[in-house]
């Protein structure tokens, strides 16, 4: 089948198998390997991307279901700057607050938080933790992820 979709502002037209997962399409067809795959059954959240601005699990969608839609991956978050100098404020807060260790779950966490923070610009800790509860992280214990979100929202960093 022919799939037409927009990813990080770039239009793609590709022939794909109907059974190709969206996560595999992004990673292996488009080479956008920042989207990670941790469980392929929709629990860990590592593969989260934005579909028309909403967070979705790309391992639970077929690529063809993205037909005509706009996707955004972690590579699009910092405006595509390859040098790493330009970080989205949320990315910068993660660096500042040590909100990542191995970094494997991080792209999915970021893509979950972007729409969450759009709708909840000043969340309390409980709300942040609820928002994160669909993303598994084995390294951080979540504490510094929460701290990073609060930092990104302008809350005073912890002493």
């Amino acid at each position, binding site marked *: 089948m022919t799939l037409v979709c927009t990813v990080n502002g770039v239009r793609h037209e590709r022939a794909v198998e109907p059974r190709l997962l969206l996560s595999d399409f992004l990673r292996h067809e488009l080479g956008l390997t920042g989207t990670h795959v941790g469980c392929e059954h929709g*629990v*860990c959240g590592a593969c989260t991307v934005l579909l028309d601005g909403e967070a979705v699990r790309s391992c639970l969608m077929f690529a063809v279901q993205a037909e005509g839609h706009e996707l955004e991956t972690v590579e699009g978050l910092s405006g595509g700057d390859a040098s*790493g100098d330009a970080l989205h404020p949320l990315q910068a807060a993660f660096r500042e607050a*040590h909100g990542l260790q191995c970094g494997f779950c991080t792209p999915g966490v970021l893509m979950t938080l972007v729409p969450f923070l759009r709708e909840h610009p000043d969340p309390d800790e409980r709300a942040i933790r609820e928002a994160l509860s669909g993303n598994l992280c084995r390294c951080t214990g979540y504490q510094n992820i929460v701290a990073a979100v609060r930092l990104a929202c302008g809350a005073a960093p912890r002493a």
Partner: protein
Amino acid sequence: MAPHRARSGIGERVRRNEDARLLTGRALFVDDVRLDGLLHVAFLRSQHAHARLTSVDASAARTRLGVVAVYTAADLGDYWRPGPLLVPPPPIAGLVFNPCTQVPLAKDKLRHVGEPIAMVVAESRYVAEDALDDIVVEADPLPAVVHLEAALAPGAPRVHDHLPSNLAAHAVQRKGDWARAKARAHAVIKRRFRYDRGASAAIENRAVAAQWDPRAEELTVWDTTQAPIPIRNGLAQLLGLLESQVRVIAPFVGGGFGPKIMMFYPEEVLVPWAALRLGRSVKWTEDRQENFFATTQERGQIHDAELAVTKDGKILGVKDVFLHDTGAYDPYGLTVPINSQCTLLGPYDIPSYESEFTAVFTNKTIVTPVRGAGRQHGVFVIERLLDFAARELGMDRVEIRRRNLLRRDQFPFNNEILFQDSAPLTYDSGDYEPALDEALKVIDYERFVREEQPRLKAAGRHVGIGVVCYVEGTGIGPYEGARVTVEPSGRIRLATGVGTQGQGHFTVFAQIVADVLSVDVTDVHVITGDTREFHWGTGTFASRGAVVAGSACHAAAVRVREKILELASRELKAAAADLVLNGGRVHVRGDPKGGMALGALALRANPLRGAVRPGTEPGLEATAYFGPDRGSTANGVHAMVVEVDQETAQVEIKRYVVVHDCGRVINPMIVEGQIQGGVAHGIGNAFYEQLVYDDEGQLLNASFMDYLLPTATDVPNVETTHRETPSPLNPVGAKGVGEAGAIPTGALFAQAVEDALAGSGLEICEIPLSPNRLFELIHEAR
């Protein structure tokens, strides 16, 4: 956001050099590797826990469109051989050890669910998985060996036919005279303790990709391993190549936690072999379900333990007899049960100790270290025994611990038994009682017990507090190395062999070097986990990266500093003692505007023309190695306040306090992160995570829907306090911290929950719990 001020050096809260790559999706993980003409692998795995394998017919699979090759054990020829024994056991007198290491593909017998039987190589992973259904396997099921005690019963089915029983190992270690201690005791506390299996559950599954370049005659392997150098050396030997013809890259690895240092996984020997044989690039990435069956696990043990105490609560001795589940094979030797045996002694002065263990083969996934690596069990046993003893003696839990802690003047303290590294279990340094006091102060123990708990209990709420102590043997040998180079740009290149799985190596090692060379930490470019860059070393395990590789980085930087000063002394015509290194320059004291940049000196050290003084080496570069005589011993105290809902058995963690001492702290931010993650892992082990096997050896919860990892709503904020008792065994003074958070959590959980339900008769002698299991225990106690 506060602007970042460039800083450097040991002890600073420096943000990480590696983060920009990870945050933007540019960091390379193994499954991200893109290669021309890449082939994909899927494995057919055993559905039986125990069976005779009578035939494997792959003929239909081989004819499927898109399938390039299918290999069974018979197709491997001479390449089929059991894996190496990774860790030979320590020289314990009277030790019995039966090594039975894993095989690349099952040949005659299937020994656990998930054991690989056949390997399909195809043009896509989708086709490879389709072809698995084409393979016809005939197997005669056998009764499975699942439970530890039944495994050793006479007439039990045997996992390995050539052995007389399922006994994998037996070892006894002793100090003092247990019989005499028991005879003298005012009280002897005896209990049976159980610990069950959990998954390491790194969010990145394992993966291996391999590419053979026939022109360069070089094999490149990308591997999610914690030990790229031993993998390279082993592959070279297996494949008949020079070590220099094999390059193993462990790029960014998405969490290790121990199982990624199992060597060799079947997939690790088969994927490179297939790439060579087919002359094409080949990749395999584990899926989550495979991970539950094929990636190593840990923690099944049953302990029968006794504690002999005086009326005053002084420990006279401990006896512990335990069974250890090693799974279907035992390639990792005795590391896990010896850690259990050694860590039981904890921070306490225990004059007599008798510890006997039997490692048992079962028809379950192979057991190798998982964060903590057996230490949890030892801590659980001694801490629970102390709790029960305190109760029997009518003594406060904290007081019985305090009375038995080793004193500051007792170090180095020889425990008179052997540790996993074959060295005597000697604690290098420590200061235990102030750590206990600090934890009590932070959690406000006295006030909680005296005021808050009675007040809340009177209001019908079940709140409890727990306080436990532990030690962690860390930073063992044999050695690691590092190479430090000043580049003409003035930036510093630092190459070392230990791969990274999120511990912050790109920053911590850079801080050590930046400290010695007085440069900014962002100017130190760290390369790890690529054997082309550095090919001497062992790997990332046993909380040893900062201690052993960090010390090697330090030693190499010190030598480079000497070279800088020697050359600058000639160039600036000043005595080395009068020179100052600062901000990437070297200048004569009192003349900060003069002098030379390090980059300019590096160019001078590598001239294109002219005579070179005899005995000098080009460049500003040095390689150094560090190997400690023995490991350094970290310690800590964890304290927790919980509230238990007696009706639902839900446990809410109100506060979690950690006071820990990992010697000199290189980066407090990273150390705190390690502890927070460890505690979360420990909470998972204590209350959420259990691999449930049925009597046929089938794993019943092999998905993240059924196996519960703690989420952001389950894990509390951890309040961490650092104490620093430097290790005398390395120049940095560091001790390891990678596993510390996960080690005492089970013991702490049990104590705090019991305290919340004090008076109910509840005794917790098992981990993991779960709301369901706790509910049962509460009702059994009634």
